[in-house]
């Protein structure tokens, strides 16, 4: 209830301020027909409409809507401003003010008086529409001054326009959002070509940028507003499609400048701090201790919105194509292959895929390790290849692929594959798996080969084989918030897959409490959080778990996990029942787990500070962050706990 009252208060103050601005704009328009005033007027009406809709203030919403519709042709420059229209808008604004004041006294009925105004606005709009020629590019001022309107070259036939849309970087399900944008545009005209084609929108690689051509008589502003109304739209650029097929040169032409990388880092660091401060500000003004000062709350929310936009732009500015790193390797691969006397063709794919520059710099070494491993252990010598009927020339592929919010980097060879039996023998020797384990899955295999100090090569070569390669890669990738996967088939080859976040710096996280500490679980891994019913847990095989949506999900008691210094042997689990208040259902590499926690704290953006890749340190965590109140929190490495 307190909140409803707070919003009502916000609505009243804000709409009063907007009404004052609108009055100012109308008065200014009476004196001089400057288009900016029409925009102010329109924005005020639109904002009031939106707020009233959210609050359920019907009369306010309907009058504001009628006013907004009446203003649309003025704003779009399709109708000249004259004294009669301005007078009508004055009257309409007065009625709007009355409706807003009436809200305070609890009146929510549409009176006859209000109804008449809505009708007047509608009738005036209908009477105007067919009379005025549709010319979108003529400024209001020109027509008001009585200058002749330039003849529109094809006023009768609607223009073909190109609408380029980019969705926000954090927009979820970009393919579906793009569909909604297209549906909004479709209402205004007929759609021509769509690039990239619509079916590909549902692909994982779709990044939310697309262009459609539309034949429509509506203004550019209307097209843009329609596209934006679908939500999560970062940019819209509307331009004319010229008959010659040439694109009109516009401000949208990309221009680039060089910038010192340290500047970019400093910018990101500041944006990150700003995000933390924003969260603290919002919590303060929304907190129970705060005496409501609605103007301040509104400024706080505006600031929060701007910070998000700024963060988007800074992150965008830091993206670089992986080619910058990939292009280092052809020469290195050639040299190493020659040294080893191996005949290998090296290919790179997906060089244009973009990644945050800090990640890009950090993945160079892991890629190098994997390439060396492949060259050293992966490929058979020429004679062996010939005997097994393989082409003598081996193939080594370095590939980048965009997959939803991650970038996947693969190193693939068509060599002999990893010898599972040899690795299992080694694992038994080192006591890394329980003696009952007789077969290694790909996941187990990865765990064993990334164990520090384990190597299956008999001799240590100068290139790799020191048993640190995969270990270093694994630690580094995890520190970056990524995961590594391994797939190998005897005689056919091996693929190492690194799955990395696209940007490193700022991520959404679910904050949970375990014991006295707060931990952050990256939101990309969180499916849902639910109450934990201790009686619902059951034992399946050796694992305790609960049923979530008809699926058995193993329970992971975080408090116990965090107390253990390192991972226990494979295939061994606690038989004692678990306790906790809530579970967070998480997923990583197709595996789900229910993490038991004591409390759900909040969801918020966190600035990720990855751990240095010190081996053996803090196995369950990928990094740390600082919360809004200044206290530190560890970031849970979901891939290591599930």
């Amino acid at each position: 209830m307190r909140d409803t009252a707070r919003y009502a208060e916000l609505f009243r103050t804000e709409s009063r301020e907007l009404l004052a601005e609108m009055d100012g704009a109308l008065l200014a328009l009476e004196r001089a027909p400057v288009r900016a005033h029409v925009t102010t007027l329109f924005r005020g009406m639109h904002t009031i409409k939106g707020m009233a809709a959210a609050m359920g203030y019907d009369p306010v919403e309907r009058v504001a809507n009628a006013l907004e519709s009446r203003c649309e042709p003025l704003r779009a420059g399709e109708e000249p401003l004259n004294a009669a229209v301005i007078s009508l808008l004055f009257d309409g604004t007065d009625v709007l003010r009355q409706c807003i004041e009436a809200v305070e006294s609890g009146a929510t009925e549409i009176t006859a008086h209000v109804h008449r105004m809505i009708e007047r606005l509608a009738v005036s709009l209908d009477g105007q529409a067919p009379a005025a020629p549709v010319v979108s590019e003529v400024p209001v001022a020109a027509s008001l001054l009585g200058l002749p309107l330039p003849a529109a070259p094809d006023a009768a036939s609607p223009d073909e326009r190109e609408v380029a849309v980019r969705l926000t970087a954090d927009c979820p399900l970009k393919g579906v959002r793009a569909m909604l944008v297209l549906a909004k545009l479709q209402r205004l005209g007929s759609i021509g070509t769509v690039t990239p084609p619509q079916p590909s929108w549902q692909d994982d690689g779709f990044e939310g940028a697309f262009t459609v051509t539309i034949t429509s008589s509506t203004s550019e502003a209307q097209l843009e507003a329609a596209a934006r109304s679908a939500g999560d739209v970062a940019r819209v650029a509307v331009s004319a499609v010229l008959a010659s097929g040439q694109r009109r040169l516009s401000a949208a032409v990309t221009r680039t400048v060089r910038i010192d990388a340290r500047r970019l880092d400093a910018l990101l660091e500041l944006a990150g701090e700003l995000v933390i401060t924003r969260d603290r500000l919002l919590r303060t003004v929304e907190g129970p201790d705060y005496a409501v000062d609605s103007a301040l709350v509104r400024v706080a929310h505006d600031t929060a919105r701007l910070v998000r936009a700024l963060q988007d732009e800074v992150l965008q500015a830091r993206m670089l194509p992986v080619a910058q790193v990939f292009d280092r390797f052809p020469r290195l691969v050639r040299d190493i292959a020659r040294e080893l006397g191996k005949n290998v063709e090296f290919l790179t794919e997906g060089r244009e895929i973009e990644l945050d520059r800090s990640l890009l710099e950090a993945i160079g070494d892991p890629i190098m390790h994997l390439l060396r491993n492949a060259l050293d252990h992966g490929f058979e010598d020429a004679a062996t290849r010939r005997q097994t009927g393989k082409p003598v020339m081996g193939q080594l592929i370095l590939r980048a692929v965009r997959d939803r919010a991650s970038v996947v980097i693969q190193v693939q060879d068509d060599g002999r594959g990893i010898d599972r039996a040899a690795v299992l023998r080694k694992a038994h020797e080192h006591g890394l798996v329980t003696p009952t384990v007789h077969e290694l899955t790909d996941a187990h295999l990865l765990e064993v080969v990334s164990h520090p100090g384990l190597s299956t090569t008999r001799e240590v070569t100068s290139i790799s084989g020191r048993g640190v390669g995969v270990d270093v890669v694994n630690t580094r990738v995890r520190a970056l918030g990524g995961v590594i996967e391994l797939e190998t088939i005897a005689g056919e080859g091996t693929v190492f897959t690194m799955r990395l976040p696209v940007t490193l710096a700022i991520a959404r996280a679910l904050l949970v409490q375990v014991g006295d500490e707060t931990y952050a679980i990256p939101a990309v891994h969180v499916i849902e959080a639910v109450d934990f019913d201790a009686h619902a847990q059951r034992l399946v095989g050796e694992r305790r778990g609960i049923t979530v949506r008809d699926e058995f999900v193993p329970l992971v008691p975080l408090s116990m996990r965090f107390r253990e210094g390192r991972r226990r042997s494979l295939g061994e689990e606690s038989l004692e029942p678990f306790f906790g208040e809530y579970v967070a259902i998480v997923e990583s590499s197709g595996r789900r787990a229910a993490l038991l926690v004591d409390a759900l704290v909040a969801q918020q953006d966190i600035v990720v500070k990855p751990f240095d890749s010190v081996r053996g340190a803090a196995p369950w965590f990928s990094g740390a962050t600082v919360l809004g109140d200044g206290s530190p929190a560890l970031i849970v490495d979901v891939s290591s706990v599930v």
Partner: protein
Amino acid sequence: MSRTVLICDDAIFMRTMVGDILQQAGFEIVGEAETGVQAVEKYKHLRPDLVTMDIVMPDMGGIDAVREITAHDPAARILMCSAMGQQALVVEAIQAGAKDFVVKPFQPSRVLEAVNRVLAA
């Protein structure tokens, strides 16, 4: 007179969370449904201004519920609540007549933006 909402989700937590977000924004939660069948029945009975609809529910899923509700009332305003990785299902729901969607885990500001878009359209 605030706008009325019917919340459809089989998880109490999710219903509570969505309910809190919307209530704080001044909406009135007039009903909750745990299954698709309940959602359709309650919609006919309550005629809310807005429906939030989970996709996976027992006893008729959210998408079929959207079909039945829009068949009954083409002007129904339905907001889909989807989990990560349900893109194809969300596409289907939109084609079935849902107006917009939000993705779990929910951020209050995103939920409210989506709700206001649905109500303003």
